[in-house]
């Protein structure tokens, strides 16, 4: 076959591709956020139990989902870098980590502001909240470990092992509300049954999920371009870029 699937695994070809793709995801994230917030604040009704405090769900759930999803994708790239020894995979993992950490921080912060008026507390050490906090430590640990090793290829390997080990935490977060008694409520949306939300509320939340998804891709693509330039500065093509 003439098409080379590994063509885009080279930093040289991926750098311009990422530059071309990023604007689409920036635009998509802004458009979806505007639509999602409009539905969330002006179409979705007030909740029968929680009043308007439930509207925090429109950022809490997207951020929490992305925090778990980005971790799995990051660990996947890191594992690919470890197994196939491809530089770009490791760079992608590095580009995703700060965004994943940010999503985790947002999920925890919005959760505290939601928990206070509804549960009566900012924070409890139940299985869901504790495992989400561990996720934040895993992201920070991944970034710190990578930064602490001078040789980038060795740093990639060490950080990849940490990322892969940490994957066990993701199903723990997701299923914690089923496996243990938690203060945190169960999932409103799952694959096995109909969502337990009014349809406009659900629509607003899903639009925000796509907005956060597009945002995460846009930031990761932009960040990976910087990482590529830093780590490939000895390559001829970067030097070429510099003289342009």
């Amino acid at each position: 076959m003439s098409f080379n699937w590994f063509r885009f695994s080279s930093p040289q070809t991926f750098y311009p591709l990422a530059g071309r793709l990023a604007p689409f995801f920036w635009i998509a994230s802004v458009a979806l956020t505007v639509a999602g917030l409009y539905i969330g604040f002006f179409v979705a009704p007030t909740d029968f139990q929680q009043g308007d405090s439930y509207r925090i769900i429109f950022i809490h759930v997207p951020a929490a989902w992305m925090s778990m999803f980005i971790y799995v994708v990051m660990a996947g790239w890191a594992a690919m870098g470890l197994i196939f020894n491809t530089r770009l995979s490791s760079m992608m993992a590095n580009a995703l980590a700060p965004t994943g950490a940010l999503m985790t921080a947002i999920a925890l912060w919005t959760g505290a502001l939601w928990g206070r008026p509804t549960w009566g507390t900012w924070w409890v050490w139940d299985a869901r909240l504790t495992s989400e906090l561990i996720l934040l430590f895993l992201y920070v640990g991944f970034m710190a470990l990578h930064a602490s090793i001078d040789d980038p290829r060795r740093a990639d390997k060490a950080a990849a092992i940490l990322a892969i080990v940490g994957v066990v935490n993701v199903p723990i977060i997701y299923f914690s509300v089923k496996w243990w008694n938690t203060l945190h409520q169960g999932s409103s949306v799952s694959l096995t049954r109909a969502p337990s939300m009014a349809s406009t509320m659900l629509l607003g939340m899903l639009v925000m999920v796509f907005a956060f998804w597009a945002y995460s891709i846009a930031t990761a693509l932009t960040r990976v371009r910087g990482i590529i330039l830093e780590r490939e500065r000895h390559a001829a093509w970067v030097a070429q870029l510099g003289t342009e």
Partner: protein
Amino acid sequence: MKPRHKRFALVAGGVAALGIAAALILNAFNSNLVFFYSPTQVAAHEAPAGRSFRIGGMVESGSVQRQDDGVTVKFVVTDTAKSIPVLYEGILPDLFKEGKGVVAEGKLEGDGVFRASQVLAKHDENYMPPEAASAVEKAQKAEQESQRTLVLDKSAGGGAENKQ
């Protein structure tokens, strides 16, 4: 074995080992990760005796009594099988309601009353507008009503058969 395959085997082996370790740890910690105990578990002496712990369940309908001092509240936590009376002094969360979930932290005294130092509301994952909620409530009531009349009809029918 190529170095790539070797690395892959190492990673796969590592992940498998970690998975098993995690499963074992989870199993061991299962009993310690309990955020609250249900009244049934408390009745079965599964809750730690002598120290503070949390109980969780529903606030029994019609059980909330505010004492004359204005700050003390008495209510019953139930999981439909067993129930525990709770005494609490302080501010209740907005979502504390009869028939809804609650988690209380405190100590079980010798008299069987749970003296709570903190009361948290545990809400469910249902979100809907108030009109929909009252419609659901009405529908449930209607269903209960129809079941009751169905039972009555049956017994009436049975009576008629007997007469024949």
